[in-house]
């Protein structure tokens, strides 16, 4: 009996040693299961938040909708996994999700040591500070000695410490686990200041008990390029996600929108638009997708400007004149040509 059990145990352990990384590509796996699994926030207005029917919307969610439209021709073939800041990278590395589109900052440490690849940026942000109006603070430089509410698991913790160290000021961090707890802490007075990316500050401010009681300080202390992330080691999938993002930005630049796209597809003589929409060249085939990949993404989800106007603009963050404008309009968004 004893030896019998031992053999079973040994076989079980051998089984463990035999597990190795599978060679199936993400695209094949996604096609086989019939949907894309997309990691998003637990709820951040404008980026990814479920409505009362559980349908996600936001500029981050739109990236996943656009990829689903490009891969399947149907933007609804996507399922969302809400993740906290701490959980997100493990979820992606372990294969639980196919795309991480969760206002994630591109940094060297993350890119080089976590087994991830950052594609491009769908929102360029910067860290800012929000204070209670009653304190009468006008600049970040006046915040010496303040208690500062912050969410755990974000790059903001490091930027905050760097900024205060550079300016020889002291601060006490008050670190919460989720965005909602951080907001509650600030609202109820556990800290004097709340720091986060400026887009998030705008969203959080609208959710305060009295939004007028808080002001966002003018300084931006960091660069936060946010964009979708994929697993390292699958270049085909990396290319697909990256070029879907480039396609919607190029569409914005060429004034191709969900409204005029059918018209343009039938009538345009512009070779760039023809290549984008798959009526000329074999761009889709090179990515391993159908010829109308970009057409589907733009038709069903819209170009970048439509995404921005639908999701981020209602937070009071205007695109014109900001870094998120196209390179041709004074911003930094610049997509390589589709050819």
């Amino acid at each position: 009996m004893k030896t019998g059990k031992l053999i079973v145990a040994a076989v079980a352990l051998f089984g463990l040693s035999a597990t190795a990384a599978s060679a199936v590509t993400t695209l094949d796996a996604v096609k086989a299961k019939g949907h894309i699994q997309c990691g998003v926030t637990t709820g951040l207005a404008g980026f990814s938040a479920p409505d009362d029917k559980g349908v996600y919307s936001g500029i981050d969610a739109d990236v996943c909708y656009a990829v689903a439209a490009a891969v399947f021709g149907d933007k609804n073939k996507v399922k969302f996994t809400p993740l906290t800041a701490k959980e997100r990278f493990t979820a992606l590395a372990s294969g639980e999700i196919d795309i991480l589109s969760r206002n994630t900052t591109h940094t060297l440490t993350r890119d080089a040591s976590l087994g991830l690849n950052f594609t491009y940026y769908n929102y360029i942000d910067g860290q800012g500070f929000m204070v209670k109006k009653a304190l009468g603070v006008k600049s970040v430089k006046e915040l010496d000695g303040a208690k500062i509410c912050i969410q755990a698991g974000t790059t903001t913790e490091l930027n905050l410490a760097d900024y205060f160290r550079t300016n020889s000021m002291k601060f006490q961090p008050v670190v919460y686990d989720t965005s909602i707890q951080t907001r509650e802490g600030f609202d109820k007075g556990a800290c004097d200041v709340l720091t986060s990316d400026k887009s998030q500050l705008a969203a959080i401010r609208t959710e305060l008990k009295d939004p007028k009681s808080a002001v966002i300080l003018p300084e931006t202390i960091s660069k936060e390029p946010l964009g979708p992330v994929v697993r390292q080691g699958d270049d085909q999938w990396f290319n697909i996600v990256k070029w879907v993002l480039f396609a919607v930005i190029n569409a914005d630049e060429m004034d191709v929108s969900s409204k005029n796209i059918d018209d343009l597809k039938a009538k345009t003589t512009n070779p760039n638009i023809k290549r984008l929409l798959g009526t000329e060249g074999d761009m889709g085939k090179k990515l391993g997708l159908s010829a109308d990949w970009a057409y589907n993404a733009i038709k069903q989800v819209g170009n970048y400007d439509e995404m921005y106007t639908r999701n981020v603009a209602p937070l009071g963050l205007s695109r014109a004149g900001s870094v998120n404008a196209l390179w041709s309009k004074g911003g930094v968004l610049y997509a390589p040509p589709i050819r």
Partner: protein
Amino acid sequence: MAGPKNTVAWHRNPLIRGIIAQAVLIAVVVWGITTIYANTVANMEARGIQIGFDFLSEVAPFGIAFSPFIDFNLGESTYLTVFFIGIQNTIIVSILGIIAATILGFAIGIMRLSPNWFISKIATFYIETFRNIPVLLQMMFWNFAIFLPLLPLPRQSLGGGGFFLNNRGVYLPKPVIENASANTAFWLAIAIGIAAMYILHKIALKRQEQTGKTMPGKLVGFGLLAALVALAAMIFGAPFGFSTPVLGTFNLTGGIEIPLPLFSLWFSLTTYTAAFIAENVRGGIEAVTKGQWEAAGALGLSRSNLLNLVVIPQAMRIIVPPTISQYLNLTKNSSLATAIAYEDIVALWTGTSLNQTGQALIIVAMTVVVYELLSLLTSIALNIYNKRVQLVER
């Protein structure tokens, strides 16, 4: 050598068979663990995830607000220091919680058995309320719904004379050594006083055993201690000066700060765990046979003597083992601290540090080891105590 010749074949000898079986088992387990380890590392490397302990000696690039015993200097302290600060903060809240929960739990448990209907119902109500609500919910309730909104902002702090209370925490004057000889004299006086208390207590006990008369040994000893300290202060001057908290631009600075997250966490862990300890205490006391109560009553002992000398020593044997589990639960429940911004090991190490370094596997494994060690240490300490209170049968 003088025994009968061993005729059993070696492979049928139970001793040898036992040794072989054990050796094979150990080999399989070791092989299993090394395989899992090698496999994990290989798979992580294949996915481009870097893994190693090098990050421990890197400088931690973020701030820490609460660390009473270990110095944290932004830009100098390493991740290893952060790890120790996390352990320190977990131990602080656990010890404070265990002490308070024991006192409160005993009080409530004894109240529950009170012959006074009103007192016993209060205790029942307390236990049924606190025991049946998840502790995370209680923590959030006390912190976000009670303490934060009800206590005033720093500029309207309550209190005075160096003692302040606001919604950021409790602020006390901090003793600072100003006069070294006065300070030495103070501690010397305390040491002598405590020794005197101990000796007087022994003498009083001996006197009671011989003559049956009680003598207030502890009380006299305490008086002596107080007199010695006063004398030392008169001769050498005040042993400490005090640095009192003052209002800065945003917060009170100087003095000792007990931050609100620590207070809220301590408060909720204490009230929650005390409900369980109270039930242990009640169970232990009820298990003491009625005859013991009656016999002690017949001897004319007062209720407090009856409880302290007869009932509780016997009840302890039943109370201690389940209470050890409650202490361990309290320590582990402290890991919920991150919800209310207390910087325990889970918040600092598996939260902030994990995110900054990305070393998920190592950081989580180290945290598991810390909790395992803390639990084992608590168990060992209390098992020693348990042996002392157990019935020694002759």
